[in-house]
């Protein structure tokens, strides 16, 4: 994975809570067996509405998505972060994220940035007010900066290190190959097998 350190760009304000992964990419598009090319299906149904924010020319080219609480709930489909990434997003800022979605984002280098409700509101309002507002998300300093908002965010230390270095997760785990083998040797014989 490419290292992730600092993201600077404009943002799309998706001012609603409980955005589930079925909305991010509907099930009919999960039949592809490739890892790429999901961007065109991002928010497929909502994009049919001409007034949907992603159809607003003023937000074209944004690299940050700002959304309401509990973003990414429901299905575990990694196709959701794939679609966001393929569309051009590098970070999502929200008051809270669903656990599996957050994991999936970290796996592919799409930053899930959790900020207090008020700060997300302030960023949302700033971007609604001025679509050209530039936002900087810095994983090294754990900070989000916009002209009107300065806020720090928490991020799991280990994940942060993995993202900053661009490590391969499987290689990292296989540093413990001896421990895995020892664990396997000690498993009870009655456990189920295929």
């Amino acid at each position, binding site marked *: 994975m490419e290292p992730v350190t600092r993201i600077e760009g404009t943002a799309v304000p998706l001012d609603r809570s*409980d955005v589930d992964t079925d909305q991010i990419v509907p099930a*009919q598009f999960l039949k592809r067996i490739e890892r790429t090319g999901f961007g065109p299906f991002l928010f497929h149904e909502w994009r049919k509405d001409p007034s949907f924010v992603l159809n607003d020319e003023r937000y074209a080219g944004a690299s940050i998505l700002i959304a309401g609480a509990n973003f990414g709930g429901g299905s575990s489909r990694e196709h959701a972060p794939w679609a966001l990434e393929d569309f051009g997003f590098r970070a999502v800022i929200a008051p809270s994220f669903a656990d*599996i979605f957050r994991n999936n984002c970290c*796996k592919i280098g799409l930053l899930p940035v959790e900020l207090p409700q008020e700060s997300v509101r302030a960023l949302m309002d700033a971007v609604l007010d001025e679509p050209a507002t530039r936002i900087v998300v810095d994983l090294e300093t754990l900070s989000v900066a916009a002209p009107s908002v300065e806020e720090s965010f928490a991020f799991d230390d280990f994940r942060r290190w993995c993202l900053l270095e661009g490590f391969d997760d*499987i290689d990292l785990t296989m540093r413990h190959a001896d421990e*895995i083998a020892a664990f396997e040797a000690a498993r009870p014989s009655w456990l*189920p097998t*295929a």
Partner: protein
Amino acid sequence: MAQTLAEPRTLAEKVWDRHVVHRAAGEPDLLYVDLHLVHEVTSPQAFEALRLAGRPVRRPDLTVATMDHNVPTTVGPVTDRTSARQMEALTTNAKEFDITLYPWGSALQGIVHVIGPEMGYTQPGLTIVCGDSHTSTHGAFGALAFGIGTSEVEHVLATQTIPQAPARTMAITVEGDLPAGCGAKDVILGIINRIGTGGGVGHVIEYRGSAIRALSMEGRMTICNMSIEAGARAGMVAPDDTTFAYLEGKPHAPSGADWERALDDWRSLPTDADATFDAEVTIDATALRPHVSWGTNPAQSVTIDDTIPEPDSFEDEAKRDAARRALAYMALEPGTRIRDIRPDTVFIGSCTNSRIEDLRLAAGVVEGHSVAKGLRALVVPGSVAVKLQAEREGLDRIFVDAGFDWRGAGCSMCLGMNPDILQPGERSASTSNRNFEGRQGKGGRTHLVSPAVAAATAIAGHFTTPEDLREVDV
């Protein structure tokens, strides 16, 4: 979850601790995975990545695959080419990586969360993962089971482990006898309504209390299944005699001396008397009523006796906004009685409610009645084994005679990846788990209900309960 062995521990902590392969400060625990379940939708990219990196599957013997999301539930070939391609990819991958596969057409095929338990793969104390959020279902046996993404599927295939940041624990205690007409689905819809779609985020929930103890394994699976709908990382129920009776004699359950060894082990799993949880919620089972969802997330539900709520009645703006949006999508007016809402389709199926007990209950309600005129009703058994069992009991005849479609096994209309979908604007009463916009077909409007309410609603043509139906009969 980093307590020492001497301290009293919860069920979740016990299962977690016994699977730690590597633990270090500042790192997630590396957990061993006892059972990895695989299906056709979330695995092709994982296998492709292994192939590109030249990595083998570490433990094909702990990996079990089936086809469920895409499969047609009618007789005949797979007509959707992309679905067929995805199913073929799983066949190829299972062969190449030497993984046991129960493909479409096999007598052991079914929804991954139905076949795992029914074949006895799912056992107390195991860690179970699958590229599917409803993996939480398997927690009904006292396993720590959770959904993962495709990159994690790849990681588990390659290493048989998964790094996991610590989880918090939550006890949800449901005490008292459930009123007649209320079942496991109403318990979990009531819980999600109470704690919200994000109420369980970061937590492993343990369902406890006399109402949970009194449930069958099928009922416990229904409850654990929808833990993810409250945002929880997993849901669990402590194993007990109900669990052991369900497992004994299952093909992949231990037998002979191993059965005794396993029982000794499983009996050590329940939460210690003086263990504490990070959060606790108590639910009065006696006050529950059948639930019907009215909105576009599973927390947006009321009881069958209620009316559609007024968006302004919610305390915060995000909830008011969500309610307004949901009612517009669902084409519902505040104040409308739930009993006056008329679905176009009734779907009995999904990993939440497609097991034999669900079908027996629904068949008992519809027996001797007919599906309301103009209403489409279908029953999709969770597995071929459930279908065959139901047919042995004559349940298929009861459904067909009443006017239901009797289908093959699969996920079907729960998520509309196969041809079973709602048309735009169509309204369903569904025993599935998600009422998200477009979940059952674009523009479709989903109301989540129990099998009992679904069956009664199919007969009456509007939302109702079996008890109401009986009163009409008199």
